[in-house]
């Protein structure tokens, strides 16, 4: 159901029709006004022409009268016929003259003769007369008369004027006298009784050839007047264009009373007809013949006067417009109705489509979002790529062939690393030819590489023969790939560090091998030394009453202990030895060490000590820091042997940044305690410098050094994640800087020792070790301490025994490295039978077990062999008493391998 059309559409045709009518009215009014204005301008122009013509005409009055006067004056004897000829000519020439008259001057004394003569000449009624209230009356007697004698046209109507004395008439007297005195054309506006609204032009004729000068002379010399009667209507009518106006002429004349008199002469009425429109009126003021003329030109305007073409055109156009507007309104309303129907249909369809589009829009929006995300991701990727490209440590240069057939390449792009490596800005690199950038290397190596890769598309690497950089002496390798666009990208690395690391890795492998070898040897040595030390101590107990034998045994024991220390040093170097790391104040140890060293310094050596007590804390085995100080100082003293020198030992706190630690691996930036040991010795040659940390490398004479000093120092420093730097100059000295990471923990107090009395016990102990000697020595020490010991050299046998009676033993002490079953396996088997069974695990060296691992397995005690008597007594007692115990020096946690 279609809703009714809104009122604005239904009323639109009517509205447009009315609007059109209004516009038509406006158009017609505007066109009418325009036409009217144009007409006004045209009429104004015509009126001005009429005014000018009238002015000329007024001036012509004077000229004509003057000419006639001259003509008459030149005629010897003027008769009526001659005057008629003159007059007819003038009247024909100038139609605005109604008549022309000649008035001779007649003296009063001549009057009777003149009148008689005129009567004789056929004018029986002739007499000089004036115009009175009842018509013509005899003129009064006075000096001079100017009777009208000749008058043309000579008509019966004007014959009565014959004898009319202008001078005797008050109306004309002043004009006559003015014309005589002034010798000028005078225009009188007075009218005769039968000549209303007429004008009279008066001109005097004087006797003689010259006009006399002076009023009196002129009054006496004048012998006649020429009078021309002007018909104002004709005067105006004959003016070209004047007949188109309603023209009035007003003449101001100054009478004797100085009053203004106005004679209004109405011209012909305009012949215009029709409804009068706002008329046209123009007033002009003209001056001529001592008179002021007021001319009013008017015109009654009718419809036909106005150029109706434009209004008609406006009307026609307006009607057409009204028709079109109305038609437009009707059509618009109809279309609006149709459109409304269509719109409703369309709206219905739009609603449906909108719903579909909404779904589509959502999908599109999702797609757009996804695309935007993709674009963002792409931009981010591009950004990342660019960042990656620029932040790559490898130099990357993209080369492009100079042209399709050229074998030469130019730089197309490069990353920051490449610019830094080459020491050039991007502008200096991009666009340069390979040969220009790398004169020798480029021509000999790079260009052939680019050519091959570009031609084959197969990536190629110059890896077998890294090329030295002529400037820095550093090492690089190059890899070339062809990009899909034909460009060849070359990645090159500064592999100097890699080579160094590889060298260090080889060194580490060597150290590792040495450490492994030492560990294996140390295990056997420890077993041997355990037996030696154990039996020596038991023998010393047995021989405590024999002083000499005790002395021997002490030497044996001392040698055994030194051997044990040596083994520990080897383990320390290889970082596999037991360590007692604790947080301590290094300056105390350094001072103590220097105190010991100072006693053994030769007099030629000056020692300079600069130890900062506020240098901080380090976490390290105190024996290790002592060993570092001793070893470095020993080397320094050796370097200054036989010469004067100065040993400088300095301990201070330092902060090292990442830049300071560039090239160091495994060392974190932060606070460090720097130990500086400098000498003024012979220095270290460059070739030697590379090997000073190698184990067993020594420049000392045979028997004077083990070659383990700096190797141990190096091992200690790396073990505590520190670093060591060496500067040396031959014959000037060497400076070692050892940096220990500063610790933040509090200083732990010295661990308490109750070594004054060994703990004893009577518990039952199952002792398991595959080494018979070790079983016997340890079993002997335990028995000596009061314990009941069952010794087994076979772990499976021990387990079997335990299985027979799990409660028969209070403690199990087992070796780790045993054939058939390791110590941890045995412990696990024992725990399976009796979970709370105290177990102590002893090991000479094992890759697989440490204190933490043992604790995780439920093992309560862990100790490294060889164990001395006291250590064994306290360990056993503690475990039996329910304490978990780790033998000091035993590794609590297995140290990670460092590269």
């Amino acid at each position, binding site marked *: 159901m279609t809703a009714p059309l809104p009122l604005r559409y239904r009323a639109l045709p009517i509205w447009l029709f009315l609007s059109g009518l209004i516009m038509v009215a406006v158009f017609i009014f505007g066109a009418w006004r325009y036409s009217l204005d144009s007409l006004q301008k045209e009429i104004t122009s015509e009126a001005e022409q009429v005014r000018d013509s009238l002015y000329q005409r007024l001036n012509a009055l004077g000229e004509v009268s003057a000419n006639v006067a001259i003509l008459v004056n030149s005629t010897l004897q003027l008769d009526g*016929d001659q005057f008629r000829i003159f007059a007819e000519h003038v009247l024909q020439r100038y139609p605005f003259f109604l008549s022309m008259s000649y008035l001779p001057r007649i003296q009063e004394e001549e009057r009777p003769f003149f009148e008689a003569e005129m009567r004789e000449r056929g004018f029986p009624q002739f007499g000089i007369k004036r115009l009175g209230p009842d018509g013509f009356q005899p003129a009064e007697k006075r000096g001079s008369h100017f009777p009208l004698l000749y008058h043309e046209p000579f008509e019966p109507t004007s014959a009565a004027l014959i004898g009319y004395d202008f001078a005797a008439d008050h109306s004309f007297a002043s004009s006559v006298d003015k014309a005589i005195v002034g010798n000028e054309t005078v225009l009188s506006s007075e009218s005769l009784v039968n000549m209303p609204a007429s004008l009279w032009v008066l001109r005097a004729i004087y006797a003689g050839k010259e006009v006399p000068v002076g009023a009196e002379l002129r009054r006496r010399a004048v012998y006649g007047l020429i009078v021309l009667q002007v018909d104002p209507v004709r005067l105006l009518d004959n003016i070209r264009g004047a007949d188109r106006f309603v023209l009035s002429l007003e003449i101001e004349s100054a009478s004797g009373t100085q009053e203004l008199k106005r004679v209004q002469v109405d011209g012909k009425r305009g012949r215009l007809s029709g409804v009068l429109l706002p008329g046209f009126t123009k007033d002009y003021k003209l001056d001529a013949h001592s008179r002021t003329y007021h001319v009013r030109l008017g015109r009654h305007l009718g419809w036909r006067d106005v150029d109706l073409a434009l209004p008609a055109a406006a009307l026609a156009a307006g009607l057409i417009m009204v028709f079109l507007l109305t038609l437009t309104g009707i059509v618009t309303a109809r279309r609006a109705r149709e459109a409304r129907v269509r719109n409703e249909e369309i709206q219905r369809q739009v609603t449906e489509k909108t719903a579909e589009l909404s779904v589509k829009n959502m999908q599109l929006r999702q797609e757009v979002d996804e695309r935007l995300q993709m674009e963002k991701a792409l931009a981010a990727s591009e950004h990342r790529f660019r960042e990656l490209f620029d932040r790559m440590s490898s130099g990357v240069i993209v080369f492009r062939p100079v042209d399709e057939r050229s074998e030469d390449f130019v730089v197309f792009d490069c990353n920051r690393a490449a610019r830094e490596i080459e020491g050039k800005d991007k502008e200096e690199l991009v666009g340069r030819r390979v040969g220009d950038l790398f004169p020798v290397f480029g021509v000999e190596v790079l260009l052939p590489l680019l050519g091959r890769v570009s031609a084959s598309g197969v990536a190629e690497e110059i890896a077998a023969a890294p090329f030295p950089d002529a400037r820095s002496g550093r090492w690089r390798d190059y890899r070339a790939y062809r990009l899909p666009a034909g460009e060849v990208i070359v990645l090159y690395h500064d592999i100097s560090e890699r080579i160094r690391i590889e060298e260090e890795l080889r060194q580490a492998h060597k150290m590792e091998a040495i450490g492994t070898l030492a560990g294996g040897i140390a295990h056997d040595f420890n077993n041997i030394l355990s037996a030696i030390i154990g039996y020596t101590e038991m023998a010393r107990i047995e021989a405590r009453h024999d002083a000499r034998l005790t002395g021997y045994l002490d030497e044996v024991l001392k040698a055994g202990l030194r051997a044990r220390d040596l083994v520990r040093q080897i383990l320390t170097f290889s970082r596999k030895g037991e360590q007692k790391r604790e947080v301590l104040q290094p300056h105390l140890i350094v001072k103590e060490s220097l105190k010991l060293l100072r006693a053994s310094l030769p007099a030629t050596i000056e020692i300079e000590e600069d130890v900062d007590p506020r240098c901080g804390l380090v976490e390290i085995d105190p024996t290790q820091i002592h060993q570092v100080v001793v070893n470095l100082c020993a080397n320094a003293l050796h370097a200054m042997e036989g010469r004067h020198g100065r040993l400088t030992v300095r301990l201070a706190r330092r902060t090292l940044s990442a830049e300071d630690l560039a090239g160091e691996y495994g060392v974190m930036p932060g606070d460090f305690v720097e130990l500086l040991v400098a000498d003024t010795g012979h220095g270290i040659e460059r070739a030697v410098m590379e090997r000073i940390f190698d184990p067993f490398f020594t420049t000392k004479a045979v028997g004077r050094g083990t070659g383990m000093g700096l190797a141990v120092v190096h091992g200690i420093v790396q073990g505590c994640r520190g670093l060591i730097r060496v500067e040396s100059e031959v014959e000037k000295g060497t400076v070692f800087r050892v940096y220990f990471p500063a610790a933040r923990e509090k200083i732990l107090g010295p661990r308490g020792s109750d070594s004054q009395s060994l703990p004893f016990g009577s518990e039952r102990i199952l002792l398991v070790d595959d080494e018979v000697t070790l079983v016997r020595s340890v079993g002997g020490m335990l028995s000596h301490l009061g314990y009941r010991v069952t010794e087994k050299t076979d772990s499976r046998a021990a387990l079997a025994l335990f299985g027979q009676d799990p409660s028969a033993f209070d403690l199990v002490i087992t070796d780790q490295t045993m054939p058939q079953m390791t110590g941890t396996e045995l412990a696990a088997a024992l725990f399976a039978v009796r979970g709370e069974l105290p177990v102590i695990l002893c090991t000479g060296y094992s890759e697989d077990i440490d204190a933490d691992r043992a604790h995780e397995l439920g093992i309560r005690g862990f100790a490294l062999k060889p164990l001395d008597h006291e250590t064994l007594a306290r360990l056993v007692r503690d475990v039996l008493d329910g304490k978990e115990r780790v033998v000091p020096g035993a590794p609590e946690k297995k140290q990670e391998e460092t590269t």
Partner: protein
Amino acid sequence: MTYPLTRLVVLLICLFLHPPLPSLAAPAKRCLYVSSYHAGYVWNDDIERALGDTLGDACEIKKFYMDGKRDVSPDFARQKASEAKELIDSWKPDVVIAADDNASKYLVMPYLKDAAVPVVFCGINWTADPYGYPYANTTGMIEIGPIDPLVGQVLTMVPEARHGIFLSAAELTQTKEVDLSKKAYGRYNVTISHMPVTSMADWEKGYVAAQEQADFVIFGNNSGINDWDDERARKWVLATAKKFTVSYLDWMAPYAMLTMAKIAHEQGEWAGKAVLLILQGTKPTDIPIVANRRWNMFVNPALLARGGFVLPSEIMRKAVKVGQ
């Protein structure tokens, strides 16, 4: 019902077929032209023509000729005047136009003085005094010759002139002309003698005699010389001319050396205009009696050459040349 309807139809038919009622048209004015002479007389014909032209259709003109040239006897004139009076009484004109002296003398003065009918006269020679004009019902134009100009030209051409002879037919009007000439020439101490003739031969003899007796000759009207022969007169004057001759009548121009002639047309035209005014309601007394003021000038070069006279060049240029 039928009877009144039939009467109405008959009435309508009668009205339709009836001629226009006289009372519906304006009554035509009547103008009676009374000529002292006869039709065919040049002077009369010119007056009559001008009168007709001026009046046009203003009035119905009826003409009456008193034929005073061909019968100059007073009885004949009185007879004609009586007839004219009867015509006036019977026809009842609105205006009577009396041309020339006989009409005024024998008709107007005895019968129409102060009558009801207006009278416009014309062609009265020189003065209206003999007829007692003006009357209460009359106006008109008096006929005068251009005597003064002619006197001037005679004195110019014949400065020593002391006597002149006025040669004309023996007629009343010529007496007036002679008297006026005597007065005009007398102002210059020139005497004028009248030589009236009645025949062609007398006129020829008189011309020859006049040239023997006088210093110049004035040709008056030949009207009244019944055997007048134009060709004979022309040949005669051409053969015998010795003295300066002038005339004031245009039809005498072929025989005179210089003629300044009255114009009959002016008389007729003036009379017509006056009649029009009277017909329009103007009283005759409001129209003054005036004299004519136009004339024509003729020269006869052959006669001038015969007599050995040379007129001023301006006159020769302006004058009409005759006798060629």
